[in-house]
């Protein structure tokens, strides 16, 4: 077993892991952060998307030991501590960006990463759809998700 220290949602967390333990397993099973979902476990669906040092990654395709000493943000770190939803989460609720909700944590984490990456540039529908290539949804048909991300991005940048 190896001891690792992760900064998860701003707080330092330690865990004993095997080298083969995946980051998503540590988050869900050792740290109780079950908001990060495992959909496919084969690097396709993006339900397990978290941010590592500010960039989106698939936590099912990343070893926990690789994240040692680094910053991890999960869906639990997105809303305010008092439960007030982040503008992107509020936009998903407002614009029917979810049905069953299984893909939603990954969608929101990808949405936040794409806003960050396109800082200052408009997020049009084509860009959003291209940026969502790593996230699958079996319910919505994506239309509500795309609308939600456009609205959430606008709300985050003060554009409406």
């Amino acid at each position: 077993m190896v001891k690792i220290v992760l900064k998860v949602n701003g707080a330092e967390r330690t865990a004993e892991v095997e080298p083969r333990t995946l980051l998503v397993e540590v988050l869900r099973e050792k740290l109780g952060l079950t908001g990060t979902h495992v959909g496919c476990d084969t690097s396709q669906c993006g339900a397990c998307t978290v941010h590592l040092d500010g960039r989106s990654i698939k936590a099912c395709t990343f070893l926990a030991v690789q994240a040692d000493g680094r910053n991890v943000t999960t869906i639990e770190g997105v809303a305010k501590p008092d439960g007030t939803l982040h503008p992107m989460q509020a936009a998903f609720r407002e614009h029917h960006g979810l049905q069953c909700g299984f893909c939603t944590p990954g969608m929101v984490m990808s949405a936040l990463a794409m806003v960050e990456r396109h800082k200052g540039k408009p997020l049009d529908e084509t860009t959003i759809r291209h940026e969502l290539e790593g996230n699958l949804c079996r319910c919505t048909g994506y239309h509500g998700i795309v609308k939600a991300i456009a609205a959430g991005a606008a709300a985050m940048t003060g554009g409406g």
Partner: protein
Amino acid sequence: MYTFDYQRPATLADAVKLHGASDEASFLAGGQTLIPTLKQRLRHASVVIDLGAIADLKGISVSGNTVTVGATTCHADVAASADIKRAIPALAALASGIGDPQVRNCGTIGGSIANNDPAADYPAAVVGLGATVHTSKRTITADDFFTGMFETALEPGELVTKVSFPVPRRAAYMKFPNPASRYAIVGVMVADTSMGIRVAVTGAGPCVFRIPGMEQALTKSFVPSAIKGIAVPPGDLNGDIHATPEYRAHLIGVMAERAVAMIG
């Protein structure tokens, strides 16, 4: 996954030494191929040597007529690099079309070419642009590096350190992606370089290859119509549920013409 030991050396020399000390060592770069393969138990490693802490292996530099990309530079960094967009826009565009954002944030050029997946994008750039692969032991020209399906000239324990690309006069990459994975069903890099016109094809065959007939025709006349009808025999091409060899042969012509049109 089978169990393995994990090491994160800080220097290239330590990484090579650790590899030499074990029978079944694997380097780990972005993990976007290695981790899925380990998960499926298609592969076993006694020790996984993470290259992520070796600062020398990461980064992009442009000097004179050469763009150098460190082995552990991720696809997203190549896609976003202002230097690469200026010097070789086709290379930045190719990197921006690999997989999806999460894969691009992890996957690396060194991992991609060392793995040499027949459907990977980077081999077309390395061969099409006539790049040089630098390793822990030597330098290898692009034409000698990729030797077959998932096969390269790398010896056991030999590490890719960087890839240097001579800046072409002009170049374009066109890919017909698998709509699910974004891997290339067929991808063609056409480049007008100081070594002449080069046309490199990925996705279609067991390994990236050049098409001398198209290169000669484009040398005479650099217009899409110059390569119309120059066919690659489907007998040597891949067939799977996504595309037959005949369809891939057809797509090579279409993608090559589109690349020439985009440049012209």
